[in-house]
């Protein structure tokens, strides 16, 4: 187990290093002199000098990376030349909104996908299973940006539910219930996407687990169907589910970007797209770095959890 964790940690550091190099290099994808592109043509010599100092642009590229990474490690992602605010501060203000949406959506997705998968696995190819299968397959083909637009059209505009329309975000501190309402449509949108994935994976794993001998044994002992499902079949069937949940995080964040953009909810996604449109490249770079590293670390944690559920994996 320890060896496994150590091996994964080395890999994690490798991946984070690659991500940091990639994020760093983004600035150099800009056509032309980075200073001119970041600051615009009318920039004062002082501003240019400040940027050159901040990014170390006068030095060769590997030295630039070291200047940049040593700042990043100390939590300094630079100062935006558009808004004159610290990039790290902007990210810290936006991040909790993304986390709230993701946590809410995952609670919804697991709370619906697990019972639905169990219901399907109880009688595979029965009417309920077919109905759930067909509807999950259809939902699989509806991208999140269409789901959110349609929900806004029907729920916020036609039904007029308060706090759900575009630009009606309420912070948790000022009005907890309003906050929940304003994040309900994004959470439901993300939950639908996750539900489809979780339902399909858990269903097929449950069906194969239920054919194992220890389940027959449990049945012959006269245990109830519910007891067998939850305390015998669920744990061995949940490894792939957890794997999918870990891999899903990146997609969730990206889907979150889309819904935030539509509803003007000031999370990381909205901040990112606004920054792209305003050519605030240092902010874009900071968000990309934070989000990518976050995704990789979360995947690592999920690997760890999967190991606790099924310790055989680390012995392979």
């Amino acid at each position, binding site marked *: 187990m320890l060896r496994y964790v150590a091996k994964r940690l080395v890999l994690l550091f490798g991946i984070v290093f690659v991500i940091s190099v990639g994020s760093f290099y983004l600035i150099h994808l800009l056509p032309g002199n980075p200073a001119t592109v970041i600051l615009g043509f009318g920039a004062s010599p002082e501003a240019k000098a400040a940027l050159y100092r901040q990014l170390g642009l006068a030095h060769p590229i590997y030295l630039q990376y070291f200047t940049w990474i040593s700042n990043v490690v100390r939590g300094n992602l630079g100062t935006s030349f558009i808004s004159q605010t610290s990039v790290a501060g902007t990210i810290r203000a936006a991040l909790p909104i993304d986390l709230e949406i993701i946590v809410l959506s995952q609670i919804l997705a697991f709370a619906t996908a697990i019972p639905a998968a169990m219901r399907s696995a109880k009688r595979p190819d029965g009417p309920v299973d077919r109905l759930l299968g067909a509807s999950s*397959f259809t939902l699989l*083909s509806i991208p999140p940006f269409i789901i959110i637009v349609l929900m806004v059209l029907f729920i916020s505009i036609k039904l007029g539910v308060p706090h759900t329309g575009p630009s009606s975000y309420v912070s948790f501190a000022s009005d907890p219930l309003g906050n929940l309402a304003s994040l309900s449509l994004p959470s439901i949108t993300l939950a639908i996407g996750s539900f489809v994935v979780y339902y399909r994976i858990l269903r097929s794993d449950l069906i194969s687990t239920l054919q194992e001998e220890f389940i027959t044994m449990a049945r012959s002992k006269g245990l109830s169907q519910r007891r067998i499902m939850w305390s015998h079949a669920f744990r061995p069937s949940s490894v792939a589910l957890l794997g999918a949940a870990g891999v899903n995080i990146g997609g969730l964040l990206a889907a979150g970007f889309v819904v935030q953009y539509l509803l003007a909810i000031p999370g990381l996604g909205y901040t990112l*797209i606004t920054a792209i449109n305003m050519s605030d490249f240092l902010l874009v770079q900071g968000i990309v770095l934070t989000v990518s590293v976050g995704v990789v670390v979360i*995947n690592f944690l999920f690997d760890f959890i999967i190991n606790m559920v099924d310790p055989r994996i680390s012995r392979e």
Partner: protein
Amino acid sequence: MSSFGSPSDSLEQALIEEYSIVERPEKKKKLGLLFWICVGWIGLNVIGAVFASVLPLQNPLYENFSAINLGPSLHHLFGTDDLGRDIFARVTYGARVSIAVGTGAMVIGFGIGAPLGMLAAHRRGRFDAILTTVMYVLLAFPAIIATIAVLSFWTPRSLLKIILVIGIASVPLVYRVIRTATLNVATKDYIIAAKVQGATDRRILMKELLPNIAPVGISFLLIGVATVVTLEGALAFLGLSVNPPTPSWGNMINEARTVLAMNPWLVLFPSAALCFFLLCLNFIGDRLRSHFDVTEVKL
């Protein structure tokens, strides 16, 4: 078959057996009507996209301010948008972007990922170990975020750049799927037999491995196209795909959101076009996969 039978009997039996082997594919469960409807729909979309400029459509960029936000009618099948442009023409032209990005990116992804995956699974050893580690690292990189990042910095955006970025981002996933599929085949007896007979690498790869992983490859290709089309839609929705006024399904939905309350048709038609396209692709891919009995590949 009885061991006492005459030679002609056993010959007949052998013929029957041989015949039944030939016949087996015919007896396999049919693909079904829905499958062919989906194929037809995709075909229709492709034809519409390719021949959009030849078909009797209105100009998708022509703005007619005396006919804005109209509902569906005979003159404008899907109505008009807030600038008086014909939505039917725009939806048809919009298919061009989605199909071009979907197929273009997958050509790049499979062009690089599939040969590498097959070669790695066939050769094994150090080549496989290094390549697989590199791909694992790249796969951990959240592809969607990387795509957004590169496209936001690599300006000005063009169709070719979008195809290139998404295509390269898909390489690690294609590599992994094809490598796993090839590994399953490469350990089979007939491959070992071919090796023992002294078949060249080239022959084993092209004649033995390729036909056997093709079903997996094709069904993954279709699902991959659907994923890329969704991604392009999301990028267009965020304003990171082709620049307006060029219509694409994603940027039409993006433009429609500002007049959502006034003209809901505007968002419904491109959304429906995109969803049906994706549904059909996913359905074809899924049906093919179960038809060829592919169970081991986890996507």
